[in-house]
């Protein structure tokens, strides 16, 4: 019975074996999670953000637990695109998993330059995800706030990159669907959302912010309803696939996202608590579909009765 369930999907001509992906910044470059499961079981791994030059990231403290959520301000610590290609890609290639490379830059030119370098490896990259939405660095977020800038970024990267482009949007905007529509019109092959929500916490003993960056990005279960509302809104505004991200802890959360229009989802903060969560979600999603006699994701995606 289980074999008949088809979890596969296609985005911009690329096949994904299932809709459970690992979110950028919560799975490194795959090396550590490979200690816990075979990466080829998941739908895709989205790498930690890569920039043109290496970045050291923010000083500690970088994280803080807030009830059942968390704040982070890592500051895009990464090895830079050259070192990524040299030392991280060979490992990822061996894993035989769909690979999505998340990138960021201080300017459109920087994004394009990273895309160009990744072109040499385009046969092993399923897509490039544009981090237009990191709340913790001065660059990045602007592209997600202004539809004109979003449009320019996507047009330019599309003209350079040989693999599909996914635009990852920020929830820290007045109208996320406006940015989504601009992204689609500029040629984005898919839209992923949401990145973290800007948040802050203060130590009342020392009067100091809990993070060296003062503010950080809120993630985890508390942001799920915000993410689902935004996925629902964007799904009803664009026709390209929507990829849902935000506080997913189990298969029920995945189904909620899918009912509201997500073709695939990314598991983020939950990886920190249970490194095998994505594998467990795939299995329980299959069981749930089987119990309902559903055969493919088309039976679920966008089927919310609103």
């Amino acid at each position: 019975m289980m074999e008949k369930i088809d979890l596969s999907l296609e985005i911009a001509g690329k096949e994904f074996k299932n809709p459970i992906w690992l979110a950028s910044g919560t799975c490194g470059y795959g090396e550590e999670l490979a200690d816990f499961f075979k990466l080829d079981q998941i739908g895709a791994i989205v790498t930690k953000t890569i920039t043109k030059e290496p970045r050291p990231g923010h000083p500690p403290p970088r994280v803080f637990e807030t009830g059942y959520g968390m704040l982070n301000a890592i500051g895009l610590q990464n090895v830079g695109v050259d070192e990524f290609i040299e030392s991280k890609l060979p490992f990822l290639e061996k894993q035989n998993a769909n690979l999505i490379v998340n990138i960021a830059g201080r300017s459109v030119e920087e994004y394009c330059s990273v895309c160009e370098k990744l072109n040499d490896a385009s046969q092993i990259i399923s897509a490039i995800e544009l981090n237009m939405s990191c709340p913790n660095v001065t660059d990045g977020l602007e592209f997600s706030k202004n539809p004109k800038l979003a449009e320019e970024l996507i047009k330019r990267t599309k003209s350079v990159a040989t693999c599909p482009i996914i635009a990852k949007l920020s929830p820290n905007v007045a109208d996320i669907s406006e940015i989504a529509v601009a992204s689609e019109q500029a040629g984005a092959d898919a839209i992923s959302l949401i990145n973290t929500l800007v948040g802050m916490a203060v130590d009342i003993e020392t009067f100091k912010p809990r993070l060296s960056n003062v503010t950080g990005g809120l993630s985890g279960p508390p942001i799920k309803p915000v993410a689902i509302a935004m996925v629902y809104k964007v799904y009803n505004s664009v026709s390209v696939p929507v990829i849902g991200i935000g506080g997913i802890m189990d298969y029920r959360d995945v189904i909620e996202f899918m009912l509201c229009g997500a073709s695939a989802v990314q598991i983020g903060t939950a990886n920190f608590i249970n490194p095998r969560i994505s594998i467990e979600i795939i299995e329980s999603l299959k069981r749930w579909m089987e119990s309902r006699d559903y055969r493919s994701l088309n039976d679920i995606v966008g089927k919310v009765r609103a």
Partner: protein
Amino acid sequence: MERRRCPGKKAPDSPYMPDIYRLRIISNSEAAGDAYLLTLHAPQIARSCQPGNFVQLKIDFPGGGLWRRPFSILDSDGDNIRILYKALGRGTSYLTCFTPDMELNAIGALGNSFSEPGRLDSIVLAGGGIGVPPLYFLAKDLLDKGYLPENIHFFNGAADAGALVFLDEIADLGVSTYAVTEDGSMGIKGFVTEGVMQFLMGVKKTPVKKDTSLYACGPNPMLHVVSKLAEEYDINCQLALESLMPCGFGICMGCAVKVRDKNTTEGYSFRRVCHEGPIFNARDIIWE
């Protein structure tokens, strides 16, 4: 700074890897110094863990708690591991309510281990507060490996005599044990670093030249002072660092510590306490 994943207790062709386990509680009871001693049935971890390693425990306390909590391993015995902890936050306070035969979800063993001192070194271990466990494990391990107890000097520091954890158990190992209390209610008066400094001064005055290896675990201000002492006396020093740890196995980059790094244009980089650590050479740490 390479990662040493539990060297020595594994077959060369099958590297030990951390895993997720449901561990049965053997006992969980009060210990001296307002601490608690937790014994867990954890055969895989017990057989492979090394001093400095830690486990990430999931404590589902009411009203919150997203992350696991890291606990340094105190020691292993057969199929069991022991953890010594203080009820300082909501997670650890709730942990005191767990009773034998209940289970805890754990990831382990995680982190690197200490480099061994020279065979004839004076070995100084400095534990501040609940910083004792990795050093106790190290002392036991060194004794198992044939290091002489008279060469091992364990400084155990706390605010007062009542807060000194595991003092008798350390003394039972046969190593030279020194209590250091801030209020002077027992042993040397002052911070644990005061005891270490007195010892190092004494070593310097002895006519027989002997190398010293220093190991420390405790709050960051204490470790900073220890690092300065190590620099002043030009001795090898390794620190077991603490940090908030969302994951504990290297994927979140949250538990960063600033270290000297000649290979970067900045001259420093951030390393993960959980993955490249928790044990670092004192001279690599940049204190701010």
